[in-house]
């Protein structure tokens, strides 16, 4: 077994780390205060090629495997999570549908501008009545000539306010339940498409989640993504593919918290010694490090399985679950070892603590991951 990254990946990783820690970290507190990611940072990220992270080379992307993607996501996770989410949602669920399910024409049309970041991607599945029960969506798509007419409301859509291209799930045949759902590529300029209210959130400042409203929205027939009636399966595929990347982002945030915690506990003195010399604190640091190391091994193991073409439904769900739970535990300990300063908004710790909380909810809650894992296990033991 070989656990090392190749030279290319190391080179890319070093470069992304340099950019993230020099440029993005410098404005992390501003992003939090102003709830906006500076245009300069977005432009630089595009020039750097981060928006093409998960797109094949022939369509102008980077063309690296899942191990490579995770290596870069780890670096992107080591800063403000609002920024991480903007990039992660675009390169993950925002583009993966077209990469994995799109036909040649769709790929040629959408992927090159998406790789350059000229067009931002988003994924629209969740509705007021369809969260964990994704098959319960109410948005309809009715065929009329060479078009589909979409009607319905999606909510909590990450990047909705800046996205140009949406992967939208809608019901094409209500008599067939989950098998009556179809995926569509919907552009923001299609007639009948509107972005609705922007949500105010506990965290992830700078990343906007909003409603999208489809009112007789006209979508050309050639924008059906994959097969008609396969939308639910497609959605699960897109989410499964995103899970390793999400865990890698969480891993990066965890590592950042460990770095900050070690630095702080070495400097902060109480009872005449740096607090890391107090066993209670030292043990918390050790526990954080162990969980992070386990997450790291698990992340790259699943990423490697993806690159080997193995089926990873169970492992990806385990990883999504584990990565999110570890991030929350690490963030909690980071607040604890920092004490008062960990609770103060002038320092980044409480921000990570709030931002960690969503990871147990979005892209499939921890509980849904457990259902998937148990379901897969039952199949294995049948």
């Amino acid at each position: 077994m070989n656990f090392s990254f190749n030279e290319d990946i190391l080179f890319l990783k070093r470069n992304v780390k340099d950019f993230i820690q020099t440029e993005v970290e410098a404005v992390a507190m501003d992003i939090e205060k102003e709830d906006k990611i500076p245009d300069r940072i977005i432009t630089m990220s595009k020039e750097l090629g981060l928006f093409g992270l998960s797109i094949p080379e022939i369509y102008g992307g980077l063309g690296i495997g899942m191990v490579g993607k995770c290596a870069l996501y780890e670096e992107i996770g080591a800063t403000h999570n609002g920024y991480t989410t903007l990039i992660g949602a675009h390169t993950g669920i925002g583009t993966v549908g077209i990469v994995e399910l799109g036909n040649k024409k769709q790929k040629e049309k959408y992927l090159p501008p998406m790789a350059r970041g000229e067009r931002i991607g988003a994924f629209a599945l969740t509705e007021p009545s369809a969260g964990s029960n994704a098959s319960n969506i109410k948005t309809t798509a009715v065929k009329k000539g060479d078009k589909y007419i979409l009607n319905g409301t999606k909510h909590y859509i990450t990047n909705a306010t800046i996205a140009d291209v949406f992967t939208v799930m809608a019901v094409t045949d209500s008599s067939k339940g989950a098998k009556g759902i179809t995926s569509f590529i919907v552009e923001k300029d299609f007639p009948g498409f509107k972005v609705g209210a922007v949500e105010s959130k506990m965290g992830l400042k700078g990343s906007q989640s909003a409603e999208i409203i489809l009112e007789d929205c006209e979508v050309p027939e050639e924008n059906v993504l994959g097969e008609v009636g396969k939308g639910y399966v497609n959605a699960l595929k897109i989410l499964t593919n995103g899970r390793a990347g999400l865990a890698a982002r969480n891993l990066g945030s965890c590592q950042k918290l460990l770095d900050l915690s070690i630095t702080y506990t070495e400097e902060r003195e109480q009872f005449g010694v740096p607090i890391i010399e107090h066993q209670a604190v030292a043990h918390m640091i050790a526990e954080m490090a162990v969980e992070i190391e386990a997450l790291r091994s698990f992340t790259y193991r699943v990423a490697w399985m993806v690159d080997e073409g193995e089926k990873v439904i169970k492992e990806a769900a385990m990883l999504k679950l584990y990565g999110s739970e570890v991030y929350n535990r690490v963030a909690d300990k980071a607040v604890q070892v920092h004490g008062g300063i960990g609770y103060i908004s002038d320092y980044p710790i409480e921000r990570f603590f709030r931002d960690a909380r969503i990871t147990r909810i979005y892209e499939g809650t921890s509980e849904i991951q457990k259902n998937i894992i148990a379901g897969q296990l039952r199949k294995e033991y049948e």
Partner: protein
Amino acid sequence: MNIYVLMKRTFDTEEKIVISNGRIEEEGAEFIINPYDEYAIEEAIQLRDEHGGEVTVVTIGSEDAEKQLRTALAMGADKAVLINTEDDVEESDQFTTVKILEAFFDDKEYDLILAGNVAIDQASGQIGPRLAEKLNIPYVTTITNLKIDGDTAHIERDVEGDVEKLDASLPLLVTCQQGLNEPRYPSLPGIMKAKKKPLEELELDDLDLDEDDVEPKTKTIEVFLPPAKEAGKVLEGEIDDQVKELVSLLRNESKVI
């Protein structure tokens, strides 16, 4: 335009310097492109994009310098040359470097050679000017702006905070100062493409040089760290007494007055 950039691999500015056996310990240290050379590379790429031609980045050193050359290629340079002296050169100084570069440029055609103003490690600032002398071409140091118009270069240079404007004719060598440009991060696709760009490796033999030809003209006697900063002294008591004590210390202890 045929543009060459002289690049040096240097210690990362954030590295702590450790000396053992009279040498700076390199084991485990991070290395970077000399920051002033980054301005030179960026300027070269911009000029190439504007006027066409080719950018070649040249360095002297060991195989380890390949990493920095790849970074330069990832930024957008077209070719890289590593003059590998690992097996041939034990001791070197500015004479050695200039002698090797002189031999390298002997059969080259060039319109412009860019270098950093100084390298942040040894900071001699000699390589550019001395090479230009050997090549018998004009040179301008510490430039902060450069426009090429036909065979003429319009230059602004930093003179202790003031700006001096001058024109020079090509072929020309310039050394680059902070403020000239904002060096780009190598793009990720650029990094992937850099693998396929040519990186030529030469040794002294290939330049018709012997070890004797490049023997340094200077000798390093000693390498030492600056004295560690000592804790300050806080004077106490009546102001008059403090002043007296201060004057006495300045006179007798630090002997500055």
